[in-house]
């Protein structure tokens, strides 16, 4: 905030040049100091005011036309919640969700993507079962062959021991 002592007539002229004669438009923190200083020299202050006020008044003669009824009606019609806002409001009321809409929507989307990813990238259940069946069959066949071979070898051994001895 500017101190009273920092206010001078140069600054007061600048205030009038920039903001005009109306003290309400001057910066809040300078208004009181400026008015106090101006009160000390009313004649000089009045000259500044008159000049600035003449321009202020002339500028105020330029009146902006009111918005036409047609445009006003059109703007009023468009001033309502759009689809996204309505959807969000309804979903919040239905789900009782108070946070941002993207959070439940994001969770749903993530779950959906995860499901699609597992379904698309993972092994085919039919192929998996078939492979397992084949593996089990192979295992049984391997076991049978091994047992038969060892049995033949055992018989060979017994025959050799009996006839060669």
């Amino acid at each position: 905030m500017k101190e009273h002592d920092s206010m001078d007539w140069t600054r007061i002229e600048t205030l009038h040049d920039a903001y005009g004669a109306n003290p309400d438009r001057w910066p809040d923190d300078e208004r009181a100091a400026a008015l106090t200083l101006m009160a000390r020299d009313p004649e000089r202050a009045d000259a500044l005011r008159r000049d600035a006020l003449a321009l202020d008044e002339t500028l105020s003669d330029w009146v902006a036309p009111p918005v036409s009824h047609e445009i006003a009606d059109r703007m009023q019609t468009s001033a309502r919640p759009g689809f996204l806002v309505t959807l969000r409001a309804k979903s919040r009321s239905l789900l009782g969700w108070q946070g941002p809409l993207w959070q439940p929507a994001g969770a749903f989307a993530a779950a959906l993507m995860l499901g699609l990813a597992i379904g698309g990238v993972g092994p085919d259940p039919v192929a998996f079962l078939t492979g397992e069946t084949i593996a089990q069959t192979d295992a049984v066949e391997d076991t049978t062959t091994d047992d038969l071979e060892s049995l033949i070898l055992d018989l060979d051994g017994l025959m050799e021991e009996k006839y060669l001895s």
Partner: protein
Amino acid sequence: MRVTPQSPVPEAVWNRMSTRSTRSPRSGPDADGAAPDAVLLAQARDGEASAYSELLTRYRDRIAGYAYRLIGDSAAAEDVAQESFLRLWRTMATKPVEGNAGAWLHRVARNLAVDRLRLRKRDGGEVSETLPSNDTTAENKLQAKCTSDRVRAAMLALPERQRAAIALVHYQNLSGKDAAAQLEITVEALESLLARGRRKLREVLSAEKDNLGPVAGESQ
């Protein structure tokens, strides 16, 4: 009422100007109980239709007026105002609007107005305008139209930034601080724009009609 440099400042005029509120419209709680912008924006985002109407009522004329000061064409100004609000509604639907709605709308309206001015300059278009007036006599209408047209022409001859500064402070009644924030410049830079703009206006308007004071600085 016309005030000439030779006449003393009428007391009634001075009092009226001194007591007139020049604060920007509600961005916070008001003494009259009106909801601040932030509350209305939140309600609108929650789908409350009444909040939309309230925001529109609060800012429609101000934004249209601001656009008019920048463009000088009421039809184009209405288009700018309409587009500004449409953008506000659309933006609100996807993300929160930062700051108060008035500042946001003023910023968007100015951008749209500048675009239109650029297009108009490129196309070499001219603006024709009729002044609506409540005056009943033909003489008053003519007088008001003459003054208004002169001011309008002088304003439109200013550089865009000087015009925007004067529009914000003089016509939109924003404080220097708010107007500077709106233009994204310092208060000192704003004061420079205002002073140069007003000096130029005074020169132009004084040259046309000798009912204004001397150019700033000449009286000293």
